């Protein structure tokens, strides 16, 4: 019974996040999918922030309560520590020690502006000799620390 209630609450939270994203941004379309034993909010869309050269297709996968996994689907970019991108093209936009992620954190206020920032810094990285000009954490984590894209609970 307890599990059932949690599943229901998670779904409501996903719907809430979905509504907020769709209300605040024009370039993302969102859906909620069954994945594993739970549900995942998936938002995809094309974006080219002003002054950027390329169109970027992004995908945000959100498992309730966990930091979303944000992936650059297009263009195909080789992931590396230098650009804060894993080999599967997902991004590490946030240093966990700065802020513990919780169900209260709204994706539209955090993750989406951070992706837009990542694109700005990536386009600068391409023209400035490979220097990341955004603020960076003092330490590195590993490929195994990627954000979740399916519900483990």
């Amino acid at each position, binding site marked *: 019974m307890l599990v059932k209630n949690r599943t229901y609450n998670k779904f409501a939270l996903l719907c809430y996040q979905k509504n907020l994203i769709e209300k*605040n*941004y*024009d*370039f993302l379309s969102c859906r909620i999918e069954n994945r594993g034993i739970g549900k995942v909010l998936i938002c995809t869309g*094309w*974006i*080219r*922030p*002003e*002054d*950027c*050269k390329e*169109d970027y*297709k992004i995908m945000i996968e959100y498992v309730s309560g966990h930091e979303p996994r944000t992936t650059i689907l*297009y*263009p*195909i970019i080789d992931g590396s*520590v230098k650009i*804060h*991108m*894993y080999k599967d093209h997902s991004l*590490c*936009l*946030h*240093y*966990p020690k*700065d*802020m513990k992620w919780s169900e209260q954190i709204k994706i*539209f*206020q*955090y993750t*989406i*502006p*951070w992706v*837009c*920032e*990542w694109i*700005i*810094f990536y*386009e*600068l990285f391409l*023209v*400035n000799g490979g220097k*990341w*000009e*955004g*603020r*960076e*954490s003092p330490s*590195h*984590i590993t490929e195994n620390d990627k954000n979740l894209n399916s519900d483990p609970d």
Partner: protein
Amino acid sequence: MNREFYKSYVDQIRNTLTNGARRGNDLSTKLYSDFSNQDSSRGIRNSLSLSKAEDTRLFESLAPLSTITGKKVNYHLRPGAHPDFPITDDQDFENHYIISVFIDVKRSTGLFKKYNPVTVANTINTIQRAAVHTIWYHDGYVQRYHGDGLFAYFGGKSISIETAVKQALSATSFISYFMKSDLKNLFNEQGIENINTRIGIDTGDAKDILWYKAGMGECSEVTTCSIHTSLAAHMQGEAKSNGIVVGDNIKKISSVSNEIFDYVRDDAGRVSYAFEIPDESLYYNQWHFEWEKYIKTLPNVGYDSSGNMFLLDHEAVEAERIASLRNKALLINSGSAFTSRDGNISIVDSDIKNQPHRFHF
């Protein structure tokens, strides 16, 4: 700034029309005066071919297109057959996505009202050359000439389908621009009926596109068998004068705003599908692609006060772009940035306030 970047082609056609032989009584005198020292068949053949140096000069006149494609392209004659699909007699077929583009040149028969076949052929040849060179600048391959038109492929094994769609849309937009602006002005000037292009573009999943060797022996070519290649040809027929019609897959794959597409409708205003099997509820949409709006969204494109398009100087634009990116980076790092509905970094406090964070890996 690079204005009139199709000027060399227009000048070439103007020269052909001005000095070329006209239809009717003067045909024989003009032809024989042109080729009096040669036998006529050889003379005609020579007059239709451009030297490699002349073709290179024309091609290089389109170098400003590099500011759109983002890379410098050197002149070389590209093969007709797509090099990624060298299907041999031993191999049956291969499945791989490709973007099929049909370009038809309409009303070129109107040229025969005023000019003899040599002049007409030279004119059409230069129009096709402008289209072919534009396609080459965008990494495309011209598979075949058919009549006054062309059949081209975009994409390949080392190019993502998204990039190939973008290349096809950009190339065909510039070809349409050439026809609708630069060339139209010349034809008006010469009192020639409006010659125009109609373009169809489509693609599909790899499983739906079969590369195979059609024909036999010397009389064969590697080509695609696909509903989407057939539909590209069909959609070309649905396009307006100097228009482009694309299949639903192109619309879905491209990053282009929905506002740049419009339904193809029949005379009664009903949506006209490119392909439909009502019994199976299968409907495949086709869309008018508003290429004039699309070109305005491309970086480095400017318009003068008369509405004429030009391409901005690449280096100056790039320097300005990088300076602006740096300002945005400073804004972000200062903690004063906001994000707008369309994902732009702004200083507008009614947008979403960017939260402080550090990138991690």
